[in-house]
């Protein structure tokens, strides 16, 4: 195993009375591209939010690059779910990407020409150069997602967390995003992606983390992406992934 960039010990989190996550333990090595999969309500988004201290942890300890989140904040990038913001907000795509540079620009300072160029470059990388001046409310879902990705790119972080970047996007966006993820991996960055489509896991990710309230299994995709683990994570009614398609096995009584 390579250098560990993220280590999670005994993490637990709750919403009101319901414990969503408990006994979460795992470690992520540098340069890996991990898909976090699990059924609805398994706590995938909560896991990311708790790691990034956007949601309070009940117990547990999280280490980024061997230090606390506060110390390593600038090395961590986050792509929230597209639905988490109001896309009616009056601003243009380039401005949203520029927000990724606010940390570098410094508080209360005006962005310079250089920052604008950087933001434009990131948009170009996502195939969105023509939409730089476009109102974000006029972008399609896939385009909005690419703007979010571009914003994460300009942050130039070493560890990225992405919450369902491939949910509900068009094929072109999915390709664009996957190319960027592979490029990030190739440059030694570490990426964790909440993912919902089991059929593409093997093609997209070299590591997979099965989550259902706790870590069901975590490891190299080739080793842990098995029918048994899928069944364990999803509650035992998904079979036959290996055949490329999966179907729901109905109880025998029916």
């Amino acid at each position: 195993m390579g250098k560990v960039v993220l280590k999670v010990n005994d993490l637990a989190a709750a919403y009101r009375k319901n414990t969503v996550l408990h006994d979460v333990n795992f470690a992520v090595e540098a340069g890996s591209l991990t898909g976090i999969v699990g059924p609805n309500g398994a706590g995938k988004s909560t896991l990311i939010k708790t790691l990034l201290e956007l949601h309070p942890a009940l117990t547990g300890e999280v280490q980024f690059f061997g230090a606390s989140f506060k110390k390593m904040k600038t090395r961590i990038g986050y792509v929230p779910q597209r639905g988490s913001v109001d896309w009616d907000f009056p601003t243009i795509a380039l401005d949203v990407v520029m927000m990724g540079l606010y940390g570098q620009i410094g508080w209360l300072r005006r962005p310079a020409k250089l920052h604008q160029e950087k933001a434009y470059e990131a948009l170009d990388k996502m195939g969105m150069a023509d939409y730089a001046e476009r109102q974000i409310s006029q972008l399609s879902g896939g385009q909005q997602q690419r703007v979010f990705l571009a914003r994460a790119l300009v942050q130039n972080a070493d560890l990225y967390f992405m919450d369902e970047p491939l949910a509900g996007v068009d094929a072109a966006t999915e390709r664009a995003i996957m190319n960027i993820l592979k490029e990030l991996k190739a440059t030694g960055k570490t990426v964790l992606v909440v993912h919902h489509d089991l059929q593409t896991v093997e093609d997209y990710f070299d590591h997979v983390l099965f989550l259902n309230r706790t870590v069901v299994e975590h490891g190299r995709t080739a080793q842990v992406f098995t029918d048994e683990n899928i069944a364990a994570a999803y509650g035992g009614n998904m079979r036959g992934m290996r055949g490329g398609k999966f179907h729901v096995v109905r109880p025998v009584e029916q």
Partner: protein
Amino acid sequence: MWSVLLNSNTQWVLFSTMILGIAAGTVGCLSYWKRQSLMSDALAHAALPGVVLSFLLFREKHLLILISGAAFSALIGAFFIQWIRSSTRIKEDAAMGMILSIFYGLGIMLLTVANRTAGNQSGLSGFILGQSASMVQTDVWTMLILALLVIAITVIGFKEWKIYLFDPQFAKGIGMSLKGMNSLYTIVLVTTIVIGIQAVGVILIAALLIIPAVSARYWTHSFKKMIIISAALGGVSGALGTLISALGSGWPTGPFIVMVASSLFIVSLFLGKEKGIVIQFWQLRIQRKQVRQQQLISPLIAKKEGQ
């Protein structure tokens, strides 16, 4: 009739309500995108008991003392709303409705007591609907300085407000303190409300925060321009409303300011460049015409190409 304009006190009052309108228009844009337009109304009503209590305590009608009390009680109101939302099963809108009416009721009750017991209370009722004519030079200065402060905070931190309003979670990720920003937002909002209550009144000050912002939305797709337009509309409403109310004796200022602001809103709603009703109707008509023409022409072109 226009002689009131020549009065230097009126000029100062006009100027201060204009600056107040500009501040309210600016802060209103922040509330609009924080989806808390109604919050300003709740906090304004919650300010009333504070005004009366500080008058009863200090027996003085110095604006700074009264608005300190107002700010204190509005902040208590804000705290209660926050507390109800986070630790009970009551939702935010219900919490705001409760705090608004309870505090306002308490304020009116205290006002009755104040009116019975104190002799020189005249004018305290002006805080309900606004009475800019009762403002003296020191009141004007207090209002001006605080309004300029609020405007300065919004302008200097423009970039920070933008990311805080658009994507607070991301802002936190890059090191912004959400707690700090939330507090600053509440302070700026409460300050705007309390400096406006003498001129506009607790019932209607929220209108000056809400209406210019929603009107500005019909003119632009840029956050910066939205703030500038909203500030301008707020400034015009403040000054013009005060001017009209100064024409009669004892006319409350608040309702006139709100009426001017509402007229500007109606103009924006119909003629606004971005999705104004008339403009939208007109654009749709042109588009329909174009499509129809194309539908007429295209078979001819196809025929010609076929030959």
